[in-house]
């Protein structure tokens, strides 16, 4: 098999320059896409002002005062605009998308608050609460309710105490309300905490980078299509007659393919190191190699299954899209239902994303590494089986 390996290496050298060129182009596209997403995120952060409807406050000066205080308090970038309206009006406005949510303050709310009791507020928000922005809107809507409730309770409590002790509480009631509200809720801290727990311990930047890296890697695998897709298995058949079994052929082919992938990834990482000053540790390199091994083997199996160039490229492309989507490489996994999140942890792409997150955070997980290697071995075994079936499948 030495000759076969040598010839395959020669073949790899022939196709490597265009593959590297395409990979560089892909890398550039991914950088641009990442930059655009970051800009979008920053822009939306600067300009987003959530419209929230408030129902049931008409005629109560204290509640209106509370709302005004809330609006003036809101110095964070997620500014909120509260609008008083009727419930039917709020429903229509929400369906039209004019407001993000509305809060219904029930009748008797103030009296109950005055007595120190809590009547739950009703929050109505859109059902499509799976995006980051909507999650923040939900959070903010909850905040408004808490703020109103707690501020009013505190304010009325203080006012009652002052009245009982012979003081005129009206003068300081407004100030107390505002200070109470500030004390009750530190919005920016709550927001930060939720971000940290959502993305495998990574910030949004790290998460996006790890997801894009997985997509980029799989797209690089796609660039090897002209070399990897066998139009027919005539060569394999001829090699079999010369006592070069299918299993050895597959191992040789995979070894060469893996080497090609490592070369291309190496060049891309080198560019990243020069451009962004990124220096990978040995552990990160080893973790990266397990990802290359597993996803490379998966892509190799797809090439074995494909019967021609078009089906091969389409199969790979749609598989990349589907797996990356379900594994949270295109979109944060925490916004998917629990079942999908669990499934992602078992998928090769999901495991690869977790491994990449580990390498970014400089941690390691033996389970993930073993699972990736196990998947890789399974994919290679599958490739041997597929090629054996194809080589033996001569009819006519």
């Amino acid at each position: 098999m030495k000759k076969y390996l040598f010839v395959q290496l020669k073949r790899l050298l022939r196709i490597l320059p265009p593959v590297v060129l395409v990979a560089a182009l892909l890398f550039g596209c991914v950088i641009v896409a990442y930059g655009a997403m970051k800009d979008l995120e920053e822009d939306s952060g600067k300009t987003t002002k959530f419209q929230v409807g408030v129902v049931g406050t008409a005629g109560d000066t204290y509640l209106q005062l509370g709302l005004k205080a809330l609006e003036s308090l809101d110095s964070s970038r997620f500014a909120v605009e509260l609008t008083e309206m009727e419930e039917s009006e709020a429903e229509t406005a929400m369906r039209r998308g004019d407001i993000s949510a509305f809060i219904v303050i029930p009748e008797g709310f103030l009296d109950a608050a005055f007595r120190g009791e809590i009547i739950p507020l009703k929050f109505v928000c859109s059902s499509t609460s799976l995006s980051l922005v909507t999650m923040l809107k939900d959070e903010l809507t909850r905040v408004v309710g808490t703020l109103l409730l707690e501020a009013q309770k505190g304010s009325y409590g203080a006012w009652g105490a002052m009245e009982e002790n012979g003081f005129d509480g009206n003068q300081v009631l407004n100030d107390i309300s505002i200070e109470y509200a500030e004390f009750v809720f530190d919005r920016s801290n709550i927001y930060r905490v939720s971000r940290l727990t959502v993305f495998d311990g990574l910030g949004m930047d790290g998460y996006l980078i790890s997801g894009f890296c997985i997509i980029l890697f799989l797209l690089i695998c796609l660039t090897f299509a002209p070399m990897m897709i066998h139009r027919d298995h005539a060569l394999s058949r001829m090699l079999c007659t010369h006592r070069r079994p299918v299993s050895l052929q597959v191992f040789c082919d995979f070894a060469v393919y893996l080497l090609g992938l490592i070369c291309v990834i190496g060049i891309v990482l080198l560019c990243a190191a020069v451009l962004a000053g990124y220096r990978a540790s040995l552990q990160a390199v080893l973790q990266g190699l397990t990802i290359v091994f597993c996803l490379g083997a998966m892509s190799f199996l797809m090439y074995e299954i494909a019967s021609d160039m078009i089906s091969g490229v389409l199969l790979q492309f749609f598989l990349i899209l589907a797996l990356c989507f379900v594994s949270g490489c295109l979109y944060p996994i925490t916004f998917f239902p629990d079942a999908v999140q669990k499934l992602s942890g078992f998928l090769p792409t999901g495991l690869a994303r977790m491994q990449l997150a580990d390498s970014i955070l400089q941690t390691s997980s033996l389970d993930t590494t073993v699972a990736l290697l196990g998947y890789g071995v399974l994919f290679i075994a599958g490739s041997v089986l597929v090629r054996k079936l194809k080589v033996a499948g001569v009819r006519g």
Partner: protein
Amino acid sequence: MQIEIKHIAKNFKRKQVLRDICLEAKSGSCIGILGANGCGKSTLLSILAGIQDCNSGSFLCDGVDLLKDNKKRAELVGYVPQGTPLIEELTAKDNLLLWYDKKTMKEQLSKGVLALLGIGEFLSVPVSKMSGGMKKRLSIGCAMAKEPPILLLDEPTAALDLSCKQSIGAYLRHYKQSGGLLLLTTHDVMELELCDAWYIIRDGVLVPFTYDGNVQKLVESL
């Protein structure tokens, strides 16, 4: 040298493609195997080449069962499958180096099988830029690396133009005359003329047929 194919049978799940294939041939002869598409011609050749197993039967060469002795089979049997057993990105020379060592390749190019096939003319041409005829000549050249006395060819000149058919036919005639044994599957009249004996696979059995140039009679027999 004499070959004997005895009672070869092959099933694909429940379908019996080859039932009882029996054949005898001596060196210096060419056997043509005919039959309708899907009748089992290629399957028979791939069994004889050791690519797939048969359910029963033997392929004897001077008493040695080549279906059991892989080493001997690799020495004695050359096989040119349908399709292109070549690496498209590489040149003819690179492809030949997969089968030949450098020294033998040079010798064969100057006065051996590769010279007879005229491969020297396109030695540095990448396979992707070759014509169908060049590819087939190169494929045969690769299969002949160990100069096997038995050559199995699966429709060797299918989809080639007349001059290519002629040049490949000339080489095969030379191979036969120099003592080689050819076993080829074909649908081609020019190849039929090369053969000394003809068989049709019908219902999984080899049926002898005498080809006298009457194509109509042949078509009716299939």
